[in-house]
């Protein structure tokens, strides 16, 4: 029994100062160094890519798009603790809103001098996509607020199935399974993304995928900035409280309805903006691109990295989508090369033949055939599943678990006196 455990009627001033200024300053310094270092690498990446002739910027863009998706889902699943299995639906809504507004195959036909022509601009379409996705977030959120855990997951799963099916069947508006193509491109200084050469001030430039890359980096940076600040605010605390104990949160005066709806709407709006860029980047969308596996993939990113930790989620997103987009293909290539090394004639040289069993020649031949036809992309869901199972056994909190902040920013120099 220490003296601390008994509250005295005359409270002593706190023994420990509110902030540990040196440690806090040190932490802030390391954080800034990280930001600067990573920021520089991210900005310089296309140049490095060009210098080393990796040709990877085009492959990196979808990876970054998926990382942004994961950041948005992290608000819903990580911060507010609402398990959403239909996140791809909002992605689809963002993409189709953009396509619907900007594509020449869309049923909206506006004359060149129509006063609504500005609506067909990509940037306007993207903002509308964000708003409409957020609206659908609220529409989905409202009836599910009473549900928790598994039940919420089932309803969101249903929503995730409904949206692509509606898109598939509303052929008049969405072209159904034919998909929509082309789609309006973002532009800057009268220069359309992805259409080279681009003429700025009479000078032609070949930009390739660069504008896309920087656009998505910009969106990602804004997201990280906004999410960090929201997390450390009244709203962020309310999300965390609802996730921890809804009954206690409600009796602290937190309105569960608006708090959860805000999480849904914000998460969905991330998905909406990402969907808009995704559609414009690919120039073709159809319902199969937004099926359940996308929702699961994004959820895997969140869980792998560490639910509720933004940096963890970024890492998880990078690992999973780069496996999906780059490594699976290269790894398959290596395994196929390995298969080619297996000598099918090796079996004929051995005398070991057991009656009734496959001959070594058969085994070698089959192994060779099998290895040479390996395609890890077909096995991707198996790989993700296995990696999640391993994660749950080895590190259930994720690669970078959500960390409690050690320091509280308290007003400097003001003495803290007990409230009474």
């Amino acid at each position, binding site marked *: 029994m220490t003296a601390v455990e008994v509250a005295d009627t005359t409270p002593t001033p706190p023994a420990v100062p509110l902030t540990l200024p040196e440690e806090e300053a040190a932490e802030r310094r390391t954080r800034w160094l990280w930001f600067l270092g990573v920021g520089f690498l991210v900005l310089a990446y296309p140049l490095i890519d060009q210098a080393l002739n990796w040709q990877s910027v085009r492959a990196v863009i979808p990876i970054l798009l998926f990382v942004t998706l994961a950041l948005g889902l992290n608000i819903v699943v990580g911060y507010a603790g609402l398990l959403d299995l239909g996140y791809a639906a909002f992605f689809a809504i963002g993409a189709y809103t953009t396509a619907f507004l900007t594509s020449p195959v869309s049923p909206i036909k506006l004359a060149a001098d129509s006063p609504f022509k500005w609506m067909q601009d990509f940037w306007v379409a993207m903002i509308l996509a964000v708003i409409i996705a957020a609206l659908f977030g609220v529409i989905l959120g409202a009836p599910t607020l009473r549900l928790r855990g598994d039940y919420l997951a089932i309803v969101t799963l249903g929503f995730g199935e409904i949206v692509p099916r509606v898109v598939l069947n509303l052929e008049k508006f969405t072209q159904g399974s034919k998909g929509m193509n082309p789609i309006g491109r973002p532009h800057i200084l009268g220069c359309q993304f992805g259409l080279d050469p681009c003429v700025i001030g009479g000078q032609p430039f070949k930009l390739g995928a660069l504008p896309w890359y920087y656009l998505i980096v910009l969106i990602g940076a804004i997201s990280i900035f906004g999410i960090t600040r929201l997390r450390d605010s009244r709203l962020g605390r309310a999300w965390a*409280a609802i996730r921890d*104990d809804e009954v206690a*949160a409600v009796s602290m005066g937190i309105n569960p309805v608006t708090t959860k709806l805000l999480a849904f709407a914000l998460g969905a709006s991330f998905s909406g903006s990402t969907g808009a860029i995704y559609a414009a980047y690919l120039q073709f969308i159809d319902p199969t691109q937004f099926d359940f596996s996308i929702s699961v993939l994004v959820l895997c990113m969140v869980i792998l990295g560490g639910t509720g930790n933004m940096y963890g989620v970024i890492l998880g997103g990078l690992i999973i989508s780069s496996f999906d987009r780059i490594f699976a293909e290269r790894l398959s290539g290596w395994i196929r090369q390995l298969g080619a090394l297996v000598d099918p004639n090796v079996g004929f040289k051995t005398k070991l033949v057991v009656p009734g069993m496959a001959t070594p020649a058969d085994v070698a031949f089959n192994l060779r055939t099998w290895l040479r036809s390996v395609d890890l992309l077909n096995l991707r869901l198996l790989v993700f599943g296995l990696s999640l199972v391993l994660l749950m056994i080895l590190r259930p909190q994720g690669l970078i678990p959500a960390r409690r902040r050690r320091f509280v920013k308290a007003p400097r120099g003001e003495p*803290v006196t007990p409230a009474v």
Partner: protein
Amino acid sequence: MTAVETPPVAPPVVLEKPLLDVRGVTKRFGGLTAVDDVNLTVEKGRIVSVIGPNGAGKTTLFNMIAGFYPPTAGTILFADHPIHRLQPHQITARGIARTFQNIRLFHNMTVVENVLVGMHPRLRSSAFGAIVRTPWFNREERAARLRAMQLLALLDLSRYATESAANLPYGMQRRLEVARALASDPQLLLLDEPTAGMNTQETAAMMALIRRLRDDLGIAVLLIEHDMRLVMGISERVSVLNYGRKIAEGSPQDVQGNDQVIEAYLGRRQAQHAETPS
């Protein structure tokens, strides 16, 4: 333990307007009547206790006042406004805060963050203000943090401010619950067994604290408690529930001598035995 034996301040004779006025409240769960036509008032700056055997309906009554259950019948007025149709978060915003019998802290948050969550209804910052970090937002957030630290100092939890709430020892978790409830600036504090599981010293400290909340902050307290020494030591009025009915009400001395109360706690034979000591 001198504080325990000090007789409570005698209530003034003037009829006060009650801050909380529970009128004929009934709660039925299917065929079970958990609370049956109970009347209860708490005046500003008073400490009122509700006691009764297990299953007497005390916590159900609390849950109705806090808005978790709508009453089957009856009305609950707080500061002259009916609150029995309101949601729990609206009731907290009006100035009733509560603690839980089985501690319900936010375990994944630090101690000071728990208190900051308690301040939720008193803060006005919006999502926009948080992202832009307007000067107004910064000012409010700074003030909130200072206030949270002051509350922690009041409950002698300052040095644990940045600890995880889950890591606190049991008695301190109870105190943190009180700090968190105080953060919403309540006029009325509902304490559901605040000293359950505490040792004598901790109980005495909690008692002193409850009295200080009343004396220095003018907060009215409605208390559910099993520790009779605590109840009799600090309450100005005690209501006794048994099988959902209020069987007695009055000063601690009145209630202690009430036959029905003795019967409810000890059973009939012992009660008769107590009446006619051989």
